[in-house]
């Protein structure tokens, strides 16, 4: 036990000399996090923002209402509506420069009034998750609203339709019509007409706070800090082999298990510090409930120890330090890519996301994302925690085994 503590302190003292490495491990995730936030609009708590392209081929009053609906209230804060032609719209959406392209077909108003089926097409940007979802919802809601509108004012709309276009409606007709409409409006409440385009009344959105896109990136970025630091520190067994201290250890009665444990403990502290700083900044920025901080840290501590041990064990299987370092670094980037450090898992194509969730870091990121986004407190499900604990323990055992099986003796 004393030797665990001695090793722990020894390594922390040594690594203090290497503070610039720590800074790099912190700086890269922060840089990338900053870039992502800037790209996501930089408006932090106010949610994501993007562009909705509307290709209004009908160009009528009713189709105008649809476009207008997207400019309202909270939706308007998130979306900039841009009217485009068919060709321009296709180009922009294919280039990924908008969140969605809504095409309102010719004859939309007629179809709407006549209550015949009509198809609005919405093409969304696969690289984004939240905004296209919102657009989809709003469009659905609008169509629902259209249905209610049609049900309520069908008669009147049909009457307007029946009037000879050339002559225009007679004054009497218009006034009788307005009386009828007014009556219905009065009966149903003043909110009725705007209601047609007011999502909240027609179909209230789910009560849970909408996750903003930066928040979805956060676990991946924290994981990036964790991976950088755990991979970096895992080279320390190789360093100790090069300096000959591993050999000195083998010829002393000091226990290798305690040595591995002490070093892993020191590494975990550093990794937890680095990913903890990243996490804390994310908590502050996104206003996440602090009650989730400790469980999140605990989760990262388990994961950090596990990654450190596995990286170390794998590095010790390579014949030279250079090869070990090079290969584990090369390995690091696909791992980050797949496991949601560059794009949130939710933004990846389904098949890739499900592969990503099976990668060890993707697994850790996925659980952390669920917990941070959820409105509820941390759910300590036995399965996930058993898995990280198993990753950690197996990695540590593997390190011990590798040291004893000859790595320390060369």
């Amino acid at each position, binding site marked *: 036990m004393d030797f665990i503590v001695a090793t722990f302190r*020894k390594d922390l003292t040594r690594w203090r000399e290497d503070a610039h490495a720590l800074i790099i491990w912190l700086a890269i995730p922060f840089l990338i996090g900053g870039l992502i936030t800037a790209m996501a609009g930089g408006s932090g708590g106010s949610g994501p923002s993007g562009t909705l392209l509307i290709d209004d081929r009908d160009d009528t009053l009713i189709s105008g209402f649809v476009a207008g609906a997207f400019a309202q209230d909270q939706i308007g804060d998130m979306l900039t509506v841009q009217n485009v032609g068919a060709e321009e719209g296709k180009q922009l959406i294919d280039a990924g420069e908008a969140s969605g392209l809504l095409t309102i077909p010719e004859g939309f108003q007629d179809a709407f009034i006549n209550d015949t089926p009509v198809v609005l097409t919405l093409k969304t940007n696969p690289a984004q998750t939240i905004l296209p979802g919102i657009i989809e919802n709003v469009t659905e809601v609008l169509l629902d609203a259209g249905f209610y509108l049609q049900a309520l004012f069908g008669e009147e709309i049909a009457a307007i339709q029946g009037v000879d276009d050339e002559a225009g409606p007679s004054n009497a007709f218009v006034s009788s019509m307005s009386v009828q409409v007014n009556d219905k409006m009065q009966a149903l409440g003043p909110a009725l007409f705007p209601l047609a385009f007011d999502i909240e009344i027609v179909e209230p959105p789910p009560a849970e706070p909408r996750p903003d896109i930066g928040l979805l990136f956060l676990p991946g970025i924290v994981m990036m800090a964790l991976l950088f630091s755990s991979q970096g520190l895992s080279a320390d067994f190789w360093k100790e082999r090069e300096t000959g201290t591993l050999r000195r250890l083998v*010829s002393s009665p000091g226990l290798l298990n305690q040595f591995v444990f002490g070093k892993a403990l020191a590494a975990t502290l550093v990794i937890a510090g680095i990913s903890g700083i990243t996490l804390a900044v994310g908590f502050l920025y996104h206003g996440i409930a602090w009650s989730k901080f400790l469980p999140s840290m605990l989760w990262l501590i388990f994961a950090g120890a596990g990654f450190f041990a596995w990286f170390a064990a794998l590095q010790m299987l390579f014949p030279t330090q250079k090869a070990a370092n090079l290969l584990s670094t090369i390995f690091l980037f696909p791992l980050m890519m797949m496991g949601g450090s560059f794009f949130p898992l939710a933004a990846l194509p389904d098949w890739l996301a499900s592969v990503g969730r099976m990668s060890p870091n993707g697994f850790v990121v996925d659980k952390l994302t669920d917990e941070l986004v959820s409105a509820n407190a941390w759910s300590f499900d036995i399965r996930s925690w058993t898995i990280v604990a198993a990753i950690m323990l197996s990695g540590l055992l593997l390190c011990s085994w590798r040291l004893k099986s000859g790595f320390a003796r060369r």
Partner: protein
Amino acid sequence: MLKVDNLTKQYGDFTAVDGACFEAGDGKVFGLLGPNGAGKSTAINCISGLLAPTSGHISVSGFDIVRDGKKAKATLGVVPQELALYEDLPALDNLNYWGKAYGLRGAELDARVREVLDYIGLADRAKDLPKEFSGGMKRRLNFGCGIVHKPKVLLLDEPTVGVDPQSRARLFEMVEAERDAGACILYTTHYMEEAERLCDSLAIIDHGKIIAHGSVDQLKAQVGARDVLQLSGRFPDGLAATIADRGIADLDVLTDESNVLTLTMTTASHHLPAIFEAITAAGGSVSETSLRSPNLETLFLLLTGKELRE
């Protein structure tokens, strides 16, 4: 006490140590003298438990290093040939850490570390990082790390390689102090002078085999009183035989090549005129002459026909 019995270590097909047997007693320095590649470090690494012997037995303070490794290692101190230091950890912490690895704790450890720092002459640099140290200072710290726990058996593997004369003298004093404190010391070197100065008894090792064994005086007696005469020049074939015919007592020919001739004999200086005469008569010529009185180096030359240091 250190006992090495029939130790053999093979790397694949290559035999680095071949049936070595020796014993070193407490309060004594036992030397392992041999050229580079002789197998000294391999032997030391087997004794310290770093390498598993291919065959043979090693007992350290009465414990078998293979079967009773932990107890054996607890009494063992190792000063490896290659530095084994944490260069990014202050000298004091290096000593502290290895003290703890050997089970020292608390006030006892503190006192001992202070003592060792004084002893290795680094008391005023205790807080500094070894990476800022000179080669000699690092060697002394390397030595200190091997003795914090006052080992009963101390293995020193060429501790003076690359060391300035001052640090070297200090290292010798430290080895002698450990010996006087009762430690059993195994000292490997390829310097004859070191072996002669420090060792009570020694083994000469070449190609993994121990080729001579005994106290310094015994080994010197093995050389006899014979000097070694080495001549360089141009020598015709059959010259050695001609010289041997001159009837010089105790004459032996060690090397007989067209440009080098190594001979050994008693009081060589008396026979120089006769030898030169024979060479001239045979049509040869001498460009360089070296005459050495008997020592361990000439013993090695006698036994192997080659120099200890090439």
